């Protein structure tokens, strides 16, 4: 009487496990397909002139995306310079004054900021910066990306510092080290690997963002390094070329996608490396 029931329970158990494994493997299929496509299409379009030339008009061969590569580095670099210090300081505040009212509201604000859709960030920066400066600019693009990085960096800093044990802080204070030096020279260094990898991950997260750049950095077919002028960037180029009707441009877009993916993967790998190598044992 009990035997067939136990058997049936075992079968159900195995079936469910099979389903979990099957669905899990299926979930990785899109990734494999996407990587396969980008690698196959991308590699054939990457060569020296692709990396060093400017875009050419339709029909002319040999166009490149040098301006977009340079633009991405400038826009994202400027964003990082704005967002990292602010984000780290905000994270320090959230950790140090965790019971204060301001910290509670700041935490809330960061949660809201983190959720704002990237396209809406674009609108906000358009109203704040583009209107004020009187036109599209690389700087406004950086501001938009900075606004997206800020909450992420603040959160990772806060979470990292939360793990730094309080007795280190006390040890430092008891040695007669002022509070601000204790924070900057004991607490922050103890969490440095986490903060650093958070910052790099923050960069990796925004470097592929397109939506907030549509009405800020806007794009530019020429080489520009001026923050006050419109500037090209890899995601913008991918979007514009991918949605164009020209085969040549699609090829350029595959190449640009491969470059962008490689950059993102490298940044992700660096963070993994930092996290595993520099982990401090408390």
């Amino acid at each position, binding site marked *: 009487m009990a035997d067939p029931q136990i058997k049936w329970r075992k079968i159900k158990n195995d079936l469910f496990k099979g389903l979990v494994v099957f669905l899990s493997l299926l979930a990785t299929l899109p990734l494999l397909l996407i990587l396969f496509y980008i690698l196959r299409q991308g590699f054939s379009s990457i060569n020296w002139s692709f990396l060093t030339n400017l875009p050419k008009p339709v029909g002319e061969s040999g166009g490149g995306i040098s301006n977009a590569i340079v633009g991405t580095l400038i826009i994202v670099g400027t964003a990082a310079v704005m967002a990292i210090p602010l984000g780290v300081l905000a994270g320090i505040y959230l950790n140090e004054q965790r*019971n204060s009212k301001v910290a509670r509201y700041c935490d809330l604000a960061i949660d809201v900021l983190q959720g704002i859709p990237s396209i809406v960030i674009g609108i906000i920066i358009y109203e704040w910066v583009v209107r004020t400066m009187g036109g599209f600019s690389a700087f406004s693009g950086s501001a938009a990306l900075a606004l997206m990085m800020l909450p992420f960096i603040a959160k990772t800093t806060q979470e990292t510092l939360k793990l730094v*044990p309080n*007795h*280190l802080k*006390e*040890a*430092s*204070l*008891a*040695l*007669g*080290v*002022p509070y601000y*030096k*204790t924070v900057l*020279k*004991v607490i922050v*260094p*103890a969490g440095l690997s986490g903060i650093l990898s958070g910052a790099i991950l923050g960069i990796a997260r925004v470097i592929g963002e397109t939506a907030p750049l549509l009405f800020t950095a806007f794009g530019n077919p020429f080489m520009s390094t001026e923050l006050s002028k419109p500037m090209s960037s890899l995601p913008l180029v991918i979007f514009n070329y991918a949605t164009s009707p020209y085969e040549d441009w699609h090829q350029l877009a595959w190449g640009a996608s491969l470059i962008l993916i490689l950059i993102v993967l490298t940044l992700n790998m660096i963070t993994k490396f930092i996290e595993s190598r520099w982990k*401090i*044992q*408390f």
Partner: protein
Amino acid sequence: MEDSVLKLKDFNAFFGENKVLKNINLDIEERKVWTILGPSGCGKTTLIRCINRMHEMTPGAHTSGQIFLKEKDIFGINPVLLRRKIGMVFQRPNPFPTMSIAHNVLAGYSLNGIKLSKNERNEIVETSLKDAALWDEVKDKLSQKGTFLSGGQQQRLCIARTLAMKPEVLLLDEATSALDPVSTAKIEELIFQLKNQYTILMVTHNMQQAARVSDKTAFLFLGELIEYNDTKEIFTNPRHKKTQDYITGRFG
């Protein structure tokens, strides 16, 4: 007494509404070892954290009454400065995990941005580690991380780090309670040596330890200072019933 180093006068400490030290009056002489003895939770840690003004770092914590360091009201001294004059060793060893052994010893200087020449540095490291009875064990691995040492060695490293600042008073908060008997014995021996140079105020709930190393013992119970006297007196001839109950093991 003219050689009084530390003096508490009508001193109270609070956590919010909760009064954890009640009207403490105490007079601590130079170059003596004092023990604050009492059951867990009676306010020993709070007492020494008040003396170097770490108590007030806790949100909601405050004090009333006075504490004098060499006749000066400590609440009129910048706490940062005060803490350089009054060193503290915690219950759990807490070397800086990012620093080597040598850097841990010098932490009070480097974190404060005090510039030292190479000779000064070497000298401070050597004398402090020697004073802390750790030199022989670590002299060959000064550049290793302090966190690789054993618990007892780590605690002596913390003592060395504190001695390096040349404080006038040394506070030890159950500095041996997390350690094995051998390390405990080493640190007790060390305390005995150090009293030639420093005034030491140590906290323990371990009566044998108090009896072994201290000149004077104060008995603290539920935030009140029940009595204090020469250690021998306290253990052989306590005046108060509560003290007697405690040292005869009737509670705690």
